């Protein structure tokens, strides 16, 4: 984790997403810097995936997106027409998904699906595009890449399909790669390979990688910066080392207490858990959404909670920084 150049590539301010009156995201702030891996963590349903889809402009038709600012390399994505946005997607910003089995079109060969995105954004002949596709498959450690170009998705395993998805996302040298739980659907051994691949690609190509995951182990291995989401809000955001060393939001602390740390947690010691469930957030909800599950909750938690920052570390809670002392979470 070297010091990366601090140029914001993606800026999200007060992003709100709703589906037919149900709020999925209620004001998320996020900055992804060039050449950095930014992990977005949280439980299922906390709004990670829709945040990513909203950034890409890929929300389902009934999804409504609002934000104070949503900018890619200084360009306002909110004002961009669908056709201008589609020129950006697949070219400068690319995305891979959770379901490698169904994310490729069953009717077309790997080669034709990969060539298509290159020719759409860069032009050139089919042969040139296929050569590039072959190079990228090789880079994504796909064996006999020339042969794969002529194969159909159903002839490939899940891990291989995800590698194809990654290679396809890289066809036009994107600056931002959004990866929505790219390993969740894969076998554990394959998961490790894909994560290693993403890590290497991120470093070698200088990608800004927005990685969505619920796996804190993945975060610890890959993230430069972490944002923790809860019930449609970013509750804490910090450089990875800072977040793991000095988690401040009670929810983040709870999450970390749920992870067994070899050597630190004894075998007979029960793992942490967070009591209760994620609440349903209706209209007019105010205050901290975590207060019903929080051991530190008090009356003022029902009012709007400010975003506190100290240096690069920010969190949304009334508690002061260092309220529980640094890294006392293993107990």
């Amino acid at each position, binding site marked *: 984790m070297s010091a990366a150049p601090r140029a914001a590539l993606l800026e999200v301010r007060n992003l709100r997403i709703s589906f037919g009156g149900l709020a999925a995201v209620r004001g998320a702030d996020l900055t992804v810097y060039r050449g950095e891996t930014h992990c977005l963590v949280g439980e299922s349903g906390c709004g990670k995936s829709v945040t990513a889809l909203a950034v890409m402009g890929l929300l389902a038709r009934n999804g409504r997106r609002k934000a104070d600012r949503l900018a890619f390399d200084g360009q306002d994505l909110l004002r961009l027409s669908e056709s201008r946005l589609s020129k950006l997607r697949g070219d400068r910003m690319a995305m891979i*998904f959770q379901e490698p089995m169904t994310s490729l*079109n069953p*009717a077309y060969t790997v080669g034709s699906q990969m060539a298509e995105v290159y020719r759409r954004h860069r032009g050139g002949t089919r042969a040139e595009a296929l050569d590039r596709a072959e190079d990228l498959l090789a880079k994504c450690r796909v064996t006999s890449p020339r042969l794969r170009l002529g194969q*159909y998705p159903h002839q490939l395993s899940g891990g291989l399909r995800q590698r194809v998805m990654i290679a396809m996302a890289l066809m036009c040298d994107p600056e931002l790669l959004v990866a929505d739980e790219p390993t969740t659907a894969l076998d554990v051994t394959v998961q490790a390979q894909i994560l290693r691949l993403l890590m290497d690609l991120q470093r070698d190509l200088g990608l800004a990688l927005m990685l969505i995951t619920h796996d804190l182990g993945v975060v610890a291995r890959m993230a430069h910066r972490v944002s923790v989401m809860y019930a449609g809000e970013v509750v804490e955001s910090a450089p990875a080392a800072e977040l793991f060393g000095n988690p401040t939001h009670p929810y983040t602390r709870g999450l970390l207490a749920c992870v067994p740390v070899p050597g630190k947690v004894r075998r007979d010691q029960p793992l942490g858990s967070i009591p209760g469930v994620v609440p349903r957030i209706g209209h007019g909800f105010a205050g901290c959404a975590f207060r019903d599950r929080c051991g530190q909750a008090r009356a003022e938690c029902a009012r709007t909670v400010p975003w506190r920052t100290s240096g690069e570390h920010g969190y949304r809670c009334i508690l002061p920084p260092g309220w529980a002392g640094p890294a006392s979470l293993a107990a």
Partner: protein
Amino acid sequence: MLLFLARRTALAVLVALTVLTFAFVLTRLAGDLAIVIAGPEARAEDVEAIRRAYGLDRPVVIQFLDWAWRAAMGDFGQSFFYRERVSTLIWERLPITLTLGLVGLAIALVVALPLGILAALRENTWIDRAVGLVAMVGQAMPSFWLGLILMLVLGLQLGWLPISGTGSWQHYVMPGIVLSFSAIPALMRLTRAGMIDAMSSDYIRTARAKGLSRGSIVLKHALRNAAMPVVSITAVQLGFMLGGSIVIETVFALHGIGFLAWESISKNDFPTVQAVVLLFAIIYIVLTLLADVLNAVLDPRLRAS
């Protein structure tokens, strides 16, 4: 792909043989053919003479094998009613029915596919509901009635199209339109359902994430996957249109196979009935085979299994 083709063809031949048998057996079940041919006032000797002349005195199995063998050679014998060779009758009428069927199908596809796609892309809007209404009205409209209305308006009042006969291509327009109405609702509904399904799939999300154009997303990525059930039903519909055009052939005085079938059944002209039944069966079989092959071309997964 070759194995796939071989298997489908073998299956098709098997079905054809089965139909051949049924076509023969069903006509025998209709009663003593010699009596029917001879007519109600015939004497017993005449009936006996006819029975010998047509070989009806032989064992049924021999009759069947004889007929099947000749049929395989393209010889369906002599029609009792038309006093002509059955194969000649069919050759004369087949082009009319085929032309009508293909015109009807072409119109149906040109109308149903775009409307189905449009309805899917505008799901649950007034456009979708309007298209659905058109499909329902089309389904409910009897073809003879629609035929007469078209004749009155396009033929008699506006004088744009000839109202009966087979002289030129214009003669096929009106019956083609009427025939297409029987296929449009099913084709449209399937196109709509398939497109709705395809458009909400993960690979369409991928196509959008790749920044592809709207046209490429809808026509290249979604339609190809939505097309398979449409191809299958198109084959069935075309078979239905070729065989079921009796009413339309009557209304527009087109003397095609449908008309021939109706007449030969009512006259108990069993060689013709057998031949026509077999012909329709073979048309169905060939069409289904074509649909299977076309689907295998569309979907690589079918080729593999």
